[in-house]
């Protein structure tokens, strides 16, 4: 909120503020990219190509197709889209299994206490450790990938759903009991909405886990996918290609997270409002 300066802020206060906030938000990132560009060119190491080269290569790899296909090249359809589909498919499967079971288990305090140790164990198994198991049992194609992703992602969702179902506010439960609202309605209209914030937290954690598992499952014995391309590039010593893959994964991870947060904001708008209120009152 500076009021000194050459007076641009007085003439066009909105524009000045906008520029200022943009600069603050993106300034550091842009500065780092410029530094990287300069340092990489100077050092000339093949391991760290300059961003301009990465961008150029990325365009060649993915955006050199015909206009009819939005300029996307064949490799996008061969690798990127199938990877994304597997990722989302595995995650969605985990949600479809984890949430209903989580509610079922969470409703019974003794059952959830009883199952908890086993679930904590299953959740703690590092995904990569199971890759050989899944390869041997399910081969190396999409089935294995999707199953691995789903298996890894279901535990955070399940555990968070159980937790959310268990910690429904007892005052709310007493209220609906007192108004003689029938059991099935209690589940649907009170338990589920009350557990939503925790369920969404579990879904968010699972989403980043899904990205990790997708990459990991494709780095091992696969013939297509983003991870495969990165590994292939490593074997063939195509450093720039490898970096393109890494940057792509960064973009995918970031975008998915951002999309999910937007979705969460819409569905759980009431939660932010309610929590914001208790924080200030």
């Amino acid at each position, binding site marked *: 909120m500076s009021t000194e300066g050459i007076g641009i802020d007085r003439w066009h206060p909105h524009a000045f503020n906008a520029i200022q906030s943009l600069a603050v938000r993106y300034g550091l990132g842009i500065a780092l990219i410029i530094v990287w560009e300069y340092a990489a060119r100077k050092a000339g190491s093949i391991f760290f190509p300059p961003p301009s080269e990465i961008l150029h290569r990325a365009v060649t790899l993915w955006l050199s197709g015909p206009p009819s296909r939005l300029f996307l090249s064949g490799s996008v359809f061969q690798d990127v889209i199938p990877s994304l589909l597997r990722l989302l498919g595995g995650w969605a499967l985990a949600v479809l299994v984890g949430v209903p079971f989580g509610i079922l288990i969470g409703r019974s305090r003794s059952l959830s206490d009883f199952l908890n140790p086993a679930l904590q164990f299953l959740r703690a198994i590092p995904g990569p450790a199971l890759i050989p198991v899944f390869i041997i049992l399910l081969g190396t194609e999409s089935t294995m990938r999707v199953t691995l992703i789903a298996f890894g992602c279901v535990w955070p969702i399940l555990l968070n759903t159980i937790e959310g179902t268990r910690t429904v506010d007892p005052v709310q439960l007493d209220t609906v009991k007192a108004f003689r609202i029938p059991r099935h309605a209690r589940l649907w209209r009170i338990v589920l909405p009350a557990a939503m914030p925790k369920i969404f937290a579990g879904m968010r954690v699972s989403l980043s886990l899904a*990205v990790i598992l997708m990459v990991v499952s494709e780095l091992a014995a696969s013939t297509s996918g983003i991870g495969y391309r990165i590994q292939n590039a490593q074997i063939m010593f195509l450093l720039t290609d490898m970096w393109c893959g890494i940057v792509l994964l960064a973009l995918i991870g970031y975008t998915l997270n951002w999309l999910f947060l937007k979705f969460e904001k819409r569905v759980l708008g009431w939660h932010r409002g309610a929590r914001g209120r208790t924080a200030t009152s």
Partner: protein
Amino acid sequence: MSDLSGAADPRAGFGRSRLFTGPNLLSRAATTLRVGLGIFAFFLILEFVTRLELVPPVYLPRASTVVRRMVELLQDPKFLGHVLATLHAWAVGLALATLISVPIGILIGTSELSYKMTSPLIEFMRPIPSVALIPLGILLWGQGFSMKIILVAYAATWPILFNTVYGVHDVDPIAVQTARCFGLKQSAILRRICLPSAAPFIFTGIRISAAIALIVVVGAELLASADSGIGSYILFVSLNGGQMDSVLAGAAIAGIIGAMINSALGLIDRRFFGWRYLGTLPS
């Protein structure tokens, strides 16, 4: 207002007293028994399913076989060496990440400007799957210990940094104002208000990072055919055919280690930071 619906009061005895009061010794024994029964029942179900032989037992051996192999492995000094190697890399990477992220996070969190400038960057870097850097890591640092700890440290940095920044930034302004009224200097405010208030969040970041670090280290060992570690052991036995019991045993032991780490960190969390649940609504 007393809550009569049977929900356990999270405020019951925080700190050391929590271990011995509230739920008394008898109910603690009951809890342990229940945990044991739960694990045993889980094992029974697995045993039953695997005996059904929906899949040929050479691909999916019986649960009892796997458990037997687990016991054998845990007595095998070579395997224990692998476990130690994994834990070593995990611990060093995690420690590095903490040592780097916490001070930087505190610095960023306390300055409003640097907070605004670095948040978008952290938000962007955080969701990058560090396993994607394994191929790069192999090229740069080989397949040994250094590669592992660098990758683990990289992966573990982001959740800790993120949590530290937000923990320090979101200190209750009323607490800070109260301290100012009492004449505390900025450094004292930082030490006595901001840091203790942020500590639970920082620790949560460490817990999250601990889990991610384990995934990254085992993943790196497996995918980079490292020379030691649980991941490399699993890779080795899976390539040498017909040893599914060892493969599963290795994965199960990794899971147990992960669960134990998680439990231990949870205990520390409740012991030192149980106070954060005081005065909050059950939700």
